[in-house]
């Protein structure tokens, strides 16, 4: 069921989104060679708690961290570990969520550790740009397929693989609400968008194939061919005009 938020609920979504966005910014300051993914997770956890919110991911489906921290060929759902140390040239994906007074924010971004390769930087840039191509169509009256088509068209035309198995979703009182928001689709198809719908739009783009596999920890999703992957996500509120990026903080 799709939940259309009222103004009061939207205010909570904005607050939750701001905390989520700030937590990622906070973590970004600490991304450098020698830091463990568990340390980054702790920074995010502490920040969210200090803001009076709760980390949505912690315990969600049994997930053991407050943030999914995935390196290089890991696409999403990487488990933070003390012995997983960032190395120069790695690309690290941080995906987290905060719940404030019952409403959730969900956001992710990809960062380089130190100096990264040109192909890794290009991947990050294309992933981010594909998100913004997608949200050009995230307005009332359009359909979910319009967003997915724009994302897929932009990334695929540059030779990248767009992950199909994992998709964006509605977000609100629950972390995962209807509708599903695939990063591929057919224009003018799928659920119609209405004002005050809130969606987590999250392109996951691979340098190689879009095929994925799940590691034996049953969480970490990696590219099937071992190629690099990037992830960019914001919680977005649909309006009649430009969408509001709930989790984007400058």
């Amino acid at each position, binding site marked *: 069921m799709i939940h259309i938020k009222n103004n009061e609920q939207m205010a909570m979504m904005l607050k939750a989104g701001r905390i989520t966005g700030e937590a990622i910014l906070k973590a970004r300051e600490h991304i450098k060679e020698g830091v463990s993914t568990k340390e980054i997770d702790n920074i995010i956890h502490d920040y969210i708690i200090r803001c009076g919110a709760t980390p949505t991911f912690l315990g969600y489906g049994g997930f053991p961290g407050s943030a*999914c921290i995935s390196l290089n060929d890991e696409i999403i*759902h990487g488990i933070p570990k003390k012995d997983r140390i960032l190395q120069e040239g790695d690309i690290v994906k941080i995906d987290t969520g905060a719940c404030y007074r019952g409403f959730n924010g969900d956001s992710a971004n990809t960062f380089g550790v130190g100096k990264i390769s040109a192909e890794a930087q290009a991947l990050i840039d294309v992933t981010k740009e594909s998100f913004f191509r997608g949200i050009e169509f995230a307005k009332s009256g359009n359909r979910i397929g319009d967003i997915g088509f724009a994302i897929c068209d932009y990334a695929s035309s540059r030779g990248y693989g767009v992950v199909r198995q*994992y*998709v964006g*979703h509605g977000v609100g009182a629950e972390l995962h609400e209807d509708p599903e928001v*695939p990063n591929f689709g057919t224009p003018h198809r799928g659920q119609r968008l209405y004002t005050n719908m809130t969606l987590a739009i999250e392109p996951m783009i691979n340098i190689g194939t879009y095929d994925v596999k799940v590691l034996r920890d049953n969480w970490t999703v990696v590219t099937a061919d071992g190629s690099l992957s990037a992830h960019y996500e914001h919680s977005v509120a649909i309006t009649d005009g430009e969408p509001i990026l709930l989790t984007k903080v400058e």
Partner: protein
Amino acid sequence: MSENIYPSVGGVCVSLTGHDAGMLFILIGMRNDKALLVNGKQRKISNPKTKNYKHISILSMLPDCSVERIKVGSIKDNEIIHQLKIAKRELLK
């Protein structure tokens, strides 16, 4: 945190469309957006049926040990037949 839209490997599922609508299968994997389905008889591990994952519905899951055997590729057709028998019995209860 992204949502997985593919059905879980090791799921006992019913076909919703086509000439096999209503038949039970076990999902042993996904290939090119298609579900790989077996029943141990007409559709064996060596020749799984491919079907759009939107055209099946997962009804229950196999025990963890069987799911693990599917993942490592060591499950046999006779175990598939046996597990489907158990699943049918459970569903008819």
